[in-house]
């Protein structure tokens, strides 16, 4: 790391780019409308696809008649499952049948439908209007069965089975931990508190809906599938298997993306069907998911039920945690993560930032007649953090202790710490972030303001949440999940051209994370190059060797490390080349300002263009042991439990008596993601995540009626908060560098979403304290708050 003497930066400053909030290189094109998203792609002769979708939640398909569809003006073709004959999408866990039951998700429903919105047929037309006209002409016959629409239905004796092979509609059932003697611990504890929580089903809701453009390239003998996905190589694998093509015969290209948040890190059925239609017709086919389908028929998340007890001693030290978690995963397991994604995350990680000595957990995934689920930013952590933080608040109340002090007594402070869940936590600033967050609210006078407001009959509440977030999962950590497909590593190639500019590939896939900026900062520092000389390439399976895409806050820790290692290797090659010219040991050189410098003669330098000239255009001058060209490849993986970023969120709310409205008066986030490559990007991640966390706490929910019909078909009903509902957020940084990522960075993508629901809910409950009512289910609506506030009003 000491081989860099400083890079030339766009703002004219000296010193490393890492750690500096350089302007996003993506912004000029995105903010001036010159980005290229899937829907911007238009190919000659391109057709448009839409899907005939199930109108019933559960039933057999008795007939699929598309004759009238094919006669609709403008419709070119319509295909059923039988017409296309595609392989199913099946995600597997390497667990025994009593712990995991797989589901085969057909690309188009064959004989059974399992949720309203399930694709049954694809209609291809000259434009999207005609395609929709075609949908209306489809005649689908159903033998309707009673729908399973909630956890209670699913687990009831004699319940209708969503999948015949899954008894009790249970796809995952694991008891990961059970500390010996835990029942005795609870029996003899000074204080046992209980929280039961249900969290609303949500939609990750990327601004850009899903979509794909597929065509066959005769010259390359390749299917080209341009689609907005977080995981290009995994889409390639599934597409090649479903379509029965060699994997090299599928090229997945990802253009600019307008968000994903996990909804796009699984493989959807529609992009495969679009590709199949393009192959059948020999013409390009585009599918753009409309907002109604995006709300009802894409992947959802977060509907969970927690029943958790915690035991404490009289001083508020936690003695044990006993948890039962049931996640309603909808109709199918998503690929590659399976229906285990939510229960396994919750069960493995629940003790979190606290020193919990005893732990028992059962985690289950049930299947229901609702749209399937995918990971959503934070995956279960927004939920279990909320539950654990509610437990701490409740215990503090019962024991008459200050809730912040109670947390202090339990936070992990000696690192590395191996928890009761077998996970080793690398160093973080758990206590420091809590102290700074509380101090900030104290210094700003919120505790006094709360006292004055209470005296005046108003309802102000202050709430906190403490959490850490495992990031940089390598293949070792993912293997513990027992996924049949084990993500983890990343590969990067750095190539310098004759002008001294570099092209860098990454297997990660930015869908808003600013990789073109942050990864370029890392490379520019490693090579002592101008930022403008570095170009990042992602999202093309033909250009990138292999990658696991972007999810689980892995891109900067894992992808950034691979990029750093590859750049380091190229740097060494440049130094060896220069050293050979000077006939000195290569160790006696350094890189900087686009040149190699020699230690013993600062005036003597060789520019990268001079060296590239030799490497490419005068290869006869190269030392005998050196290959022509200037390229280097490196891979990176994490062989431990990963690295934990952490944060404390502090929130002040006011509850309005007349309406029940929850107004957020102050939001402070103190975060630690190790070395922040670009602090402004980190802050953006925090703010966006917090907005989504607030959405879950107070606004968004997808509900289903007794027939399994989803309620939210537009933004009138799915209440995504707008800029007017989301407060300004102050982000403060602490920095505990990661010891094993190449840059010291930890992941920063999900923390905002994780911390917000707990902090908001704690603040709401703090404000409700005089009423004696505690609210544990989300979203907390104004009507619920209003009812709670009325309890006191009517008592006094």
């Amino acid at each position, binding site marked *: 790391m000491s081989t860099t003497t400083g890079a030339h930066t766009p703002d004219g400053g000296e010193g490393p780019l890492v750690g500096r909030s350089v302007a996003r290189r993506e912004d000029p094109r995105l903010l001036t409308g010159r980005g290229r998203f899937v829907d911007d792609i238009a190919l000659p002769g391109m057709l448009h696809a839409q899907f005939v979708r199930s109108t019933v939640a559960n039933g057999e398909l008795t007939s699929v008649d598309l004759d009238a569809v094919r006669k609709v003006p403008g419709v070119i073709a319509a295909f059923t499952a039988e017409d296309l004959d595609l392989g199913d999408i099946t995600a597997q866990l390497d667990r025994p049948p009593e712990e995991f039951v797989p589901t085969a998700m057909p690309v188009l429903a064959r004989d059974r439908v399992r949720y309203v919105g399930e694709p049954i047929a694809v209609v291809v037309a000259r434009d999207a209007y005609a395609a929709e006209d075609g949908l209306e002409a489809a005649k689908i016959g159903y033998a309707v069965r009673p729908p399973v629409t909630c956890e209670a239905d699913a687990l009831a004796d004699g319940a209708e089975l969503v999948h015949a092979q899954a008894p009790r509609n249970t796809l995952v059932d694991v008891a990961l931990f059970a500390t010996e003697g835990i029942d005795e611990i609870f029996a003899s504890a000074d204080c046992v508190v209980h929280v039961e929580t249900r969290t609303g089903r949500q939609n990750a809701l990327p601004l850009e809906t899903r979509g794909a453009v597929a065509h066959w390239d005769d010259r390359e003998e390749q299917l080209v599938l341009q689609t907005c996905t977080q995981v290009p190589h995994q889409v390639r694998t599934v597409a090649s298997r479903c379509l029965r093509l060699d994997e090299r015969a599928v090229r997945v290209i990802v253009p600019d993306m307008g968000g994903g948040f996990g909804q796009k890190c699984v493989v959807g059925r529609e992009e495969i069907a679009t590709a199949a239609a393009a192959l059948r017709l020999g013409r390009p086919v585009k599918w753009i998911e*409309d907002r109604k389908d995006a709300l009802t028929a894409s992947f959802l998340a977060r509907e969970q039920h927690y029943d958790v007890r915690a035991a404490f001693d009289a001083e508020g030290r936690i003695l044990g945690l006993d948890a039962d978690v049931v996640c309603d995963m909808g109709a199918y397991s998503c690929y590659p993560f399976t229906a285990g994604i939510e229960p396994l995350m919750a069960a493995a990680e629940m003790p979190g930032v606290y020193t919990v000595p005893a732990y028992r957990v059962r985690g289950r995934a049930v299947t229901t007649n609702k749209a399937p689920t995918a990971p959503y930013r934070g995956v279960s952590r927004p939920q279990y953090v909320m539950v654990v933080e509610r437990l701490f608040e409740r215990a503090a109340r019962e024991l008459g202790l200050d809730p912040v002090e109670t947390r202090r007594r339990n936070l992990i402070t000696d690192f590395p710490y191996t928890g009761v869940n077998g996970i080793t936590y690398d160093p973080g600033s758990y206590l420091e972030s809590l102290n700074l967050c509380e101090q900030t609210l104290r210094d700003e006078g919120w505790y006094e303001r709360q006292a004055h407001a209470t005296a005046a009959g108003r309802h102000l509440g202050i709430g906190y949440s403490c959490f850490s977030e495992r990031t940089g999962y390598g293949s070792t950590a993912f293997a513990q999940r027992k996924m049949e497909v084990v993500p983890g590593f990343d590969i990067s190639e750095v190539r310098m051209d004759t002008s001294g500019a570099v092209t860098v590939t990454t297997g990660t896939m930015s869908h808003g994370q600013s990789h073109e900026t942050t990864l370029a900062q890392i490379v520019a520092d490693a090579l002592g190059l101008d930022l403008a000389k570095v170009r990042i390439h992602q999202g093309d399976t033909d250009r990138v060797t292999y990658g696991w895409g972007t999810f689980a806050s892995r891109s900067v820790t894992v992808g950034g490390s691979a990029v750093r290692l590859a750049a380091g290797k190229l740097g060494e090659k440049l130094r060896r080349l220069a050293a050979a010219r000077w006939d000195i040991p290569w160790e006696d050189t350094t890189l900087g300002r686009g040149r190699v410098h020699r230690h013993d003669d600062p005036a003597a330098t060789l520019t990268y263009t001079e060296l590239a000239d030799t490497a490419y255009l005068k290869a006869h001058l190269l030392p005998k042991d050196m290959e022509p060209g200037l390229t280097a490849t490196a891979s990176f993986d994490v062989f431990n439990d990963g690295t934990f970023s952490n944060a404390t969120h502090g929130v002040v709310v006011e509850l309005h008596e007349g309406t029940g409205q929850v107004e957020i008066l102050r939001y402070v986030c103190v975060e630690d993601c190790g070395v922040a490559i670009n602090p402004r990007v980190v802050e953006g991640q925090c703010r966006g995540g917090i907005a989504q966390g607030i959405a879950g706490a107070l606004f968004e929910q997808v509900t289903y009626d007794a027939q399994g019909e989803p309620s939210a078909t537009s933004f009138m009903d799915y209440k995504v908060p707008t800029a007017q509902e989301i407060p300004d957020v102050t982000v403060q940084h602490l920095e505990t560098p990661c010891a094993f990522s190449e840059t010291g960075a930890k992941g920063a993508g999900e923390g905002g979403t994780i911390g917000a629901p707990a902090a908001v809910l704690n603040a709401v409950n703090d404000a409700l304290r005089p009423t004696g009512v505690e609210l544990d289910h989300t979203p907390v609506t104004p009507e619920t708050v209003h009812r709670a506030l009325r309890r006191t009003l009517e008592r006094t």
Partner: protein
Amino acid sequence: MKPAPFRYHRARDTEGAARLLAELGDDAKVIAGGQSLVAMMNFRLARPRHLVDIGGLRALDHLGTDSTGALRIGALTTHHTVETAPARRLGPGFDVLRAAMGWIGHLPIRTRGTVGGSIAHADATAEWCLLAVALDAELHTHGPRGPRRIPAAEFFFGSYTNALDPDELLTEIVFPRPAPHAALTEFAERRGDFAIVSAVVDLDLAGTEVRGGRVALGGVAPVPVRVPEAEQVLATGGSFADCAAAAAAAVNPPDDANGSADYRRRLIGTLVRRACEEARAR
């Protein structure tokens, strides 16, 4: 979310629009700003075979007070025009209208949506419908059987239905007299949403003394309603709190996913009182 097939017609003037509507009959729908209609067409909830675009009818885009002191608003005037109107076009007697505009959707919607479109659409929670009923507006129409002047109290029949014939065009909205001490307020979970409940109070003030007033509510029935019981309280010197309580007790609001009947009743209490106070302060 693409509309079913339709034919598009652009009217040159009021006569032309009326002729097109007469010719095309029940299959035609008038489009002005399109802020409600296009969304319904995209969901295929509305499937007009013909759209008659009146967007070019300059004569219907006007705003100003006439010699009688009445405010005349052309049907094509946008919400944004009202929101930003200078005092010479929208005098202090009609501040309530300017202030109410902030509750309508979001800025882009207000720059396209029109006053006439909102009233002709007749959504039960629409601000313009409520204002029209509360302030006794008169709705002027043009049709093959000649012009009509329909009092707002007789205009709204139910959700999305009103007294307009299919071949009739709403041309002008007339607020007959200033309402200097009036206010509209409402509540929704998100700013810009359709109100769960909305309230207009128009006070008759002598100095600071309340001599009476009008109270109207949206979101509690299929059409905006006046609440005589609450007005009676104002007329007899009752407090704002009593007025609000009377309003809450008088109506029988719906019970649905946006709010229980009980919650709506309590919102009425809050909002009527708030509107009374804002009206007095104006």
